[in-house]
């Protein structure tokens, strides 16, 4: 905390960058509120939504922010691009999940694999990773976990390893795109990075990291791979086509999902923000699928959206009173023009912190700071690449522990309800290895791609 205290002093003395100059008392109070809220979020002493809302309310009460700054400022308020992109994608998912396409794909894959456990795991993980790149991670694992339990039940293997592998595949796959993981959505909005920027800069690495992960999984989960040809026959008897109850709905959903992806890719030609494209897609899908309002709105995770809003107001207040500016100033001094060292610190630091706290609040708080650093770089390639270091660290770090990402918590819950409890350490034992390997791969990637030939 001494760093923050120093920042408070600096910010109190020189709040030149901010809208209005805040008194030292307000700055100190704002830091106290922020740190306090973080402790509550990390320890889960109160629900994270309640913590974020209460923190945001306190920021208003102490005068660190106001309605103008919280609701209408891009710098210091709620990032509506993020909120509405999430909302649009959640509605799209609400319709797509009813089609049964995930159940179809998973059972089709298990049959293609002829019930051989490792092949089944590799195929299910690949489906999960691709789906996570296009949809929210939590939704993907919610769809893939029940069918995995069914398949494991049929081939007579314990499902824990399969479920853990899938959630990791989901976190790795989600790293690849702008919409794959919430931290990426925040980064994209803050840094004004396009869907294609993510595809070009992160997706190639994610493909390699995922391939390495599959090889690693063969060894990590080797005890789950007992093969019984007799049981494998039960898999072949399942009929995946019956999972698709409404082929017309499936066709329409896939067409709209395709159009949304095309819209993201054509961003520079269309000049439509990702949030607008997601909302247009959601609107179109709702109309052509004729899904009842209550049904698709049921999939919208309102608590998550409210959590984001609370976080944005809180972090915005820190920006508003100049704390982030002061920290950024200090970071710029420390980094100088050694951007590779900064990227290294950001990558490994983010991986460690994201394993401990939810990566959403982490990235929401770090984004304004990284933004300052990148701006100070004045367009140098090495400075811009700091965003990728943040994204890779935060996304891949989510695998490290059982609480590192929301998808982990969700899958552990499903496993427990089905009679396969996965303890914190059982997950974390695998998570630490996978995170260490993938982050260790990300480091040379960053170096070779952005720094070695600069």
């Amino acid at each position: 905390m001494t760093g923050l205290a120093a920042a408070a002093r600096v910010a109190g003395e020189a709040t030149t960058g901010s809208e209005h100059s805040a008194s030292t008392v307000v700055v100190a109070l704002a830091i106290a509120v922020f740190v306090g809220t973080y402790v509550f979020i990390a320890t889960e002493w109160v629900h994270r939504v309640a913590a974020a809302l209460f923190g945001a309310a306190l920021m208003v009460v102490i005068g660190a922010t106001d309605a103008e700054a919280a609701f209408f400022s891009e710098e210091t308020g709620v990032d509506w691009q993020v909120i509405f992109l999430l909302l649009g994608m959640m509605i799209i998912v609400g319709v797509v999940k009813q089609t049964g396409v995930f159940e179809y794909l998973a059972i089709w894959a298990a049959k293609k694999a002829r019930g051989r456990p490792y092949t089944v795991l590799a195929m299910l993980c690949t489906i999960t990773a691709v789906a996570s790149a296009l949809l929210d991670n939590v939704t993907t694992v919610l769809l893939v976990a029940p069918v995995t339990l069914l398949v494991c039940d049929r081939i007579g293997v314990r499902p824990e390893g399969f479920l853990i592998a899938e959630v990791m595949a989901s976190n790795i796959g989600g790293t690849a795109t702008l919409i794959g993981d919430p931290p990426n959505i925040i980064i994209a909005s803050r840094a004004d990075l396009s869907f294609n920027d993510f595809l070009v800069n992160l997706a190639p690495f994610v493909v390699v990291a995922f391939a390495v992960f599959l090889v690693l999984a063969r060894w990590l989960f080797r005890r789950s791979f007992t093969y019984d040809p007799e049981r494998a026959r039960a898999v072949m008897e399942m009929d995946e086509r019956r999972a698709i109850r409404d082929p017309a709905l499936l066709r329409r959903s896939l067409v709209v999902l395709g159009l949304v992806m095309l819209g993201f890719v054509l961003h520079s030609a269309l000049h439509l923000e990702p949030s607008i494209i997601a909302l247009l897609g959601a609107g179109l899908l709702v109309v052509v699928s004729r899904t009842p309002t209550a049904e698709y709105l049921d999939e919208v995770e309102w608590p998550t959206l409210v959590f984001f809003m609370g976080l944005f107001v809180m972090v915005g207040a820190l920006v508003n009173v100049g704390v982030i500016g002061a920290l950024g100033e200090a970071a710029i001094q420390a980094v100088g023009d050694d951007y590779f060292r900064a990227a290294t610190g950001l990558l490994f630091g983010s991986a460690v912190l994201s394993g401990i706290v939810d990566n959403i609040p982490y990235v929401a708080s770090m984004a304004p700071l990284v933004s300052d650093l990148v701006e100070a770089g004045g367009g140098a390639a090495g400075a811009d690449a700091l965003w990728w270091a943040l994204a890779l660290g935060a996304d891949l770090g989510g695998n490290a522990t059982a609480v590192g990402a929301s998808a982990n918590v969700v899958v552990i819950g499903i496993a427990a309800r089905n009679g396969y409890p996965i303890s914190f350490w059982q997950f974390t034992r695998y998570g630490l290895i996978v995170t260490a390997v993938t982050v260790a791969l990300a480091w040379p990637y960053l170096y070779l791609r952005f720094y070695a030939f600069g």
Partner: protein
Amino acid sequence: MRARDLAEPFPVVHLDTPALDASRLLVERSLPGLVVVDREGLPLVILPGSQVLRFALPEYVEEDRTLAAVYSEKDADALCESLRGRTVAELMPSSQFLPKKSSARPIVDPDANLMEVAAAMAEQHSPVVAVVDNGEILGVITVHRLLGAALPR
């Protein structure tokens, strides 16, 4: 009319009764549900027939109904195999759904009037309530029996 006038004998099952035996009882005697008693012999919970069926379903099928369709006919026929080797205790709703207060148990007083009996059934979503006097089961009232007595002729 009072609850004691309607009470009729009814088999009860214990927490350690094998699940298959309990289910067979349901079928052979055409019962609307199972009365599960605790160690003191007091009715703990009523498992309606539909609830017993639910426990034959894997949890993942309940979470994702689409999966029910992909089973082959043969495997779907073997639905109740999952009850083999399990006891009634394992079929019970998880402890958070079990009545904590005695007032929430599927029990009525022998002196309860028909309105009270009907209210107890409706509140518990149960087709059966037990009539208990001083810790002893006098009998049970099924929804059939109640309606038969209460419907205008």
